[in-house]
């Protein structure tokens, strides 16, 4: 179960990363080495072990349904690389 170039390319596409040929080669080798290392976890029997997604036993953390001030629109739009007429602009999206 080792990672190949095609899989690296697939993962890069999922992550929206465009790789150069050189990067693809390098990442393939490096990820293969790292995955080979992390597979040592298979030495451990985890049958019946609950996964830990959160370390604290916190539950049901909520806030009251109250409106708080929003940001000034000008500030939000100023952060954006491109904005027009109150909207943040991106190349046309085709559905």
């Amino acid at each position: 179960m080792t990672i190949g170039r095609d899989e690296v390319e697939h993962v890069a596409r999922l992550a929206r990363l465009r790789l150069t040929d050189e990067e693809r080669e390098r990442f393939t080798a490096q990820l293969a080495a790292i995955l080979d290392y992390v597979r040592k976890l298979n030495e451990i029997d985890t049958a019946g072990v609950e996964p830990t997604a959160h370390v604290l036993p916190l539950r049901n953390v909520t806030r009251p349904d109250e409106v708080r001030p929003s940001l000034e629109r000008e500030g939000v739009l100023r952060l954006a690389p491109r904005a027009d007429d109150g909207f943040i602009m991106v190349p046309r999206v085709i559905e």
Partner: protein
Amino acid sequence: MDPTDLTLHEAAEAMRGGGISSREYTAACLERVRRVDPVFGAFVEVYGEEALEAAVAADRRRAAGEPGGALAGVPVAVKDNICAAGRRAGCASKILDGFVAPYDATAVERLRAAGAIILGRTNMDEFAMGSSTETSSRGVTRNPWDPERVPGGSSGGSAAAVAAREVPAALGTDTGGSIRQPAALCGVAGLKPTYGRVSRFGLVAFASSLDQIGPIARSVRDLALLLEVIGGHDGRDSTSAEGSPRGLAGGLDRGIEGLRVGVPEEFFAAGVDGEVRASVEASVGRMRDLGAAVVGVRLPHTPYAVATYYIVATAEASSNLARYDGVQYGLRAADPRDLPDLYERTRAEGLGPEVKRRIMLGTYVLSAGYHDAYYLKALKVRTLMRRDFEEAFGRCDVIATPTAPTAAFALGEKTADPLTMYLSDICTISASLAGIPAISVPCGFTAAGLPVGLQLMARPFEEGTLLRAAHAYEQATDWHRRRPPDPAPARGGGV
């Protein structure tokens, strides 16, 4: 005496007693930054003028008899991944070019409320991904003890700034050792609080289930003071624990008589440098001399910590960093052909190789067909590691280990092989995965004159015990008083 030799609490006390003004002290820090930072590169931005203005204002308030906060007039630096309103928060990444935070992180808000002056932002590994501050897009930070060596990472800028007397204390962030390891490599003290102790609101996420903000300073008392200021419940962070850390500084001097210090053999195994091991073993002996009981404990899943960590942390990171896509803020690739082009090129140009590598790894371990084999498996091993600690803490009150397997390594030494770099976190990662508090304090020097760190870990929310033990050790030794040599003047200009 050079005022920059004052620790945080000494400076605060001197200001309260009229021995020094905030303006004088802040100016001395800024002068020190001007002189040494061109060599060390600890800061990415210094707020010189504003800091001096704030210092003058603090002096004026003090003169008017206004009661100041615990840190009134004291300058503190903040890592580049913590938001302060109106300031950049760059995470040492090109992709956040031009991003100005519209709000304060809770930790920054609390620093300000206590009267602290934010002196500037410190360098780091890009998005806190690294153990040497070499992945920064803002250039490397150098170790004040040897500028040809790394300061550790990812909070390398904060640790170097504190070690080099540029500032008495700084906030860092720790996901797998990013406060403790650079503190150890730079010969200063650093605390990773219990997960949930310090609000993460305003901390730019790397791996949300592991990230914690914590202080780096030149004394344990300073760490206690800072944790009292920045810690405590925050309604804006769902993972923030109830309650507030109180009386930490006050409880420091109670000594460690009867305290049980656990020593896990797994942390002294192959890979730990002989000099480091000797220093840490000697410091455990010193704690015994101070009245502590030393017991052997086992943490059997330690050999799996790095593997577990690099799955959990990268999985979360792949999702946390998806938002950097050129749409709403930061970098956008020029003239995108269409939306996929905008996404892919912005991220290709804006993110460095280590960040890309981790995003790739994290995406892979969550992807269809691999999720259970890698991600879910790692979460289960994480459970076993937490159980290890629960059992060990049945037999002891603190656990003592090296902070890092080696002293500071040379710049460039580990950049070619990511796995070797990952293994430099081998001693710190376990506490991160278990969510428990851990501290690093100076405990010796190698023959080459490089600092070595002692790591102590405690049960969740027992920072009091941890700080007390570290303080007792610190007070019985003088490693923390050593000062790195002044650097030869750098070529080129300042920050």
